[in-house]
């Protein structure tokens, strides 16, 4: 195990024992091998930078780097965006710790020394973020390495194995070159990813969101605060923004579009598919802070004469978020809301039972223009999970779900 703080400034010698320079940085080539140090950047006394490939390194220790080459066989350094430089791109930068689901700043990097096939290789093991790493950085160069190891050993060490490290790179073409993918990140719960996003700067947020697939991006964006949502969506191209917004539940989509500037939201709406856009436009038409503005147009409704089979068919055809379905609403001949059949009852019923019999006696609903306080009170009084929203003629327009009401209550505090 050797640390970057111990490797930096190490003297580098050629095969004859002549001093070449001091070790300035280490480069990894993710297209070849994501963990192996591919080249060593050495600063010469004449202020030039040499580039030594890993096959030319004979041995590495805390005292020196011994190469198996001579000066004339060593090339000069040419900056390459496809290479990951440890000091420039990793040290003191923020990374995402996918395991602990947070954003941390790298203080030191751990390496393993591995002899291999006549030369010696360095492989990245972990990012080091604890107090021990801080002590090493502070004392680096001022005190002997052996004493630094002893001192830093007294303090807690916190490392993140490299496989859980997600680098953050705002430049999308560089992301491709460095093979940065956020697959692991995408596997986390959207709320956790949203927490991580909140710790990043806007460019970095954009980088992460652009790399996620539309559905995951939509779920994640739904979980971040509204102002941030709007800022984020305004910063990505409107076609991609439209793709993401389409994946969001219509009420969330309406909220975000409302928050964006009129020009930006018009662009996004224009780029959306017409059905989705229509739903969202309807919701945008309602005044803010009313039941209409809170509701979503994603709900399941069947005729009141339908049976269990009809309900299951409707569930199968539903393309919204199944987890949020608790009730199937029933409408009468004139499209008026007549009943609400809880899913649990449907599950227990005989297949030939008309849904009308499974409905609760009185359907509690709210007018679209009612204010949001009324909505909250209704939820509270009748212990509701969803509340249907109707117009003056009792036609079902949408439903308000408990999570939206919870958000209202939490924000009011």
């Amino acid at each position, binding site marked *: 195990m050797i640390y970057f703080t111990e490797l930096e400034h190490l003297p580098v010698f050629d095969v004859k024992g002549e001093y070449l320079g001091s070790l300035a940085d280490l480069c990894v080539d993710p297209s070849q091998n994501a963990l192996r140090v591919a080249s060593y950047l050495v600063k010469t006394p004449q202020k030039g930078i040499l580039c030594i490939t890993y096959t030319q390194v004979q041995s590495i220790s805390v005292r020196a780097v011994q190469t198996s080459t001579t000066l004339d066989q060593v090339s000069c350094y040419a900056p390459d965006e496809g290479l990951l430089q440890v000091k420039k791109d990793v*040290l*003191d*930068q923020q990374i995402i710790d996918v395991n602990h689901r947070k954003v941390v700043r790298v*203080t030191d990097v751990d390496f393993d020394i591995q002899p291999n096939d006549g030369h010696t290789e360095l492989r990245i093991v972990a990012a080091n973020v604890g107090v021990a790493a801080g002590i090493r*950085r502070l004392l680096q160069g001022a005190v002997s390495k052996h004493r630094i190891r002893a001192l830093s050993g007294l303090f807690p060490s916190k490392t993140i194995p490299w496989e859980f490290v997600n680098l953050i790179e705002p430049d999308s073409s560089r992301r491709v070159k460095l093979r940065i993918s956020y697959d692991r990140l995408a596997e986390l719960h959207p709320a956790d990813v949203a927490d991580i996003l909140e710790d990043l700067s806007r460019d970095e947020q954009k980088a992460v969101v652009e790399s996620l697939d539309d559905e995951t991006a939509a779920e994640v964006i739904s979980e971040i605060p509204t102002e941030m949502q709007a*800022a984020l969506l*305004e910063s990505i191209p409107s076609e991609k923004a439209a793709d993401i917004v389409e994946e969001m539940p219509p009420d969330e989509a309406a909220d975000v579009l409302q928050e964006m500037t009129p020009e930006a939201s018009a662009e996004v709406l224009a780029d959306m598919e017409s059905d989705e856009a229509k739903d969202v436009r309807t919701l*945008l*038409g309602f005044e803010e802070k009313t039941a209409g503005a809170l509701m979503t147009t994603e709900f399941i409704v069947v005729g009141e004469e339908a049976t269990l089979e009809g309900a299951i068919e409707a569930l199968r055809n539903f393309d919204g978020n199944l987890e949020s379905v608790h009730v199937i609403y029933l409408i009468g001949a004139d499209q008026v809301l007549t009943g609400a059949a809880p899913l649990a009852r449907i599950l227990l019923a005989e297949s030939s039972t008309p849904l009308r019999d499974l409905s609760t006696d009185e359907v509690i609903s709210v007018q679209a223009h009612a204010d949001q306080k009324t909505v909250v009170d209704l939820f509270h009084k009748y212990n509701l999970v969803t509340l249907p929203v109707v117009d003056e003629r009792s036609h079902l327009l949408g439903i308000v779900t408990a999570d939206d009401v919870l958000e209202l209550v939490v924000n009011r505090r």
Partner: protein
Amino acid sequence: MIKRLSHFRTQLLVFLAVVGPGIITANVDNDAGGIFTYSNAGATFGYSLLWTLIPVTVALIVVQEMVARMGAVTGKGLADLIREEYGFRMTFLVMVLLLIADLGNTISEFAGLASGMSVVGVSRYIVVPLGAALVWVLVVRGTYQSVEKIFLVACLFYIAYPLSCFLAHPHWADAIKGTVVPYVRFDSNYLYVLIGLVGTTIAPWMQFYLQSAVVEKGVKLKDYRLSRWDVIVGCIMTDVVAFFIIAACAATIHVTGHGQIKDAGEAALALRPLAGRAASYLFAFGLCNASLFSACILPLATAYYVCEGLGVESGINKRLHEAPSFYALYTTLIVLGALAVIFLSPEKQIPIALFSQVINGMLLPIVLIFMLRLVNREDLMGDYRNNRTFNIIAWVCCVTMIVLTLVWFVSTFFPGHLPA
């Protein structure tokens, strides 16, 4: 129709949302250290330090605009930027220096609280522990937000100063002359007060606070223009208040030959023309409000940016075990600040408060140098780099403070080497 109305409302809301960091920073700027520094300046040197206000206001606007711009463009805090561009060791050293300065500032807030309440006869042994506990609970329990409005409203107290100033019938000719004619003496006392004046107005911790507040608000680049106005208005407000505190003290205390301010009772005399016998109560009220307000913000802001720079978990919304160092740092600042004031004798309170502002002034160039190097980086700021005027003003400010500090040092420890 709804779209158009909501557009206007959005714009208004954006303005109101973006207005905030600057105005709040301005009012926190006038904390106990500020009130004492300005009062002392007016009492000891009359109108002759008023000329500093215009250059200092200009410098303040430039500096704060720079940090607001950096926050809006990079979306990162100042400590974050310093860490990313200058590495751990440099960041650590700067954080240590600023921590010391901010501990001094915290001490001066509690000193203000103690002084203010001593005017109405309450002992510091009661007031300071209570005040510290109150501040800690308000902030940690998260109820600070609801109280912030009360603090801001109580800041209307500062109107007392211009009123009192006019009622004191100052010698306006002298005041105007003092405002436009620069007058520099090379003696230690004068320079000390001068450095403190700059340090209390352009406090280093405020720059970190403002940049973080701008980032927190998520100020978008296009709304940044509005936040510029917020900053400018805030700066002007701060310095108008400063002007009247100095002028009022000059017109009342200096004129009667009292000289250096030794306790809050003397500083309160500046409000006599307005409030008569109630001047001390009025002053105590304003001073305590300013002290508590800043005590709620300053140590918290310090804990935030130090943790940010060192890469340690921070956040008042996190639980204790999630962000232990943050809470430890914050609590230590409050406890040490309070303890220092409890054990310091009353005569030392104001000198320590003044000294803490002088430290601000001496550390300002260090922070300015970092800021200037960061704000001029093309890869960080793109087209929003500093223009030449801003660079000149900021560098002049930086160099001036370094020169003033050096000259003060020489005149204090090697007196007689400089012309009078």
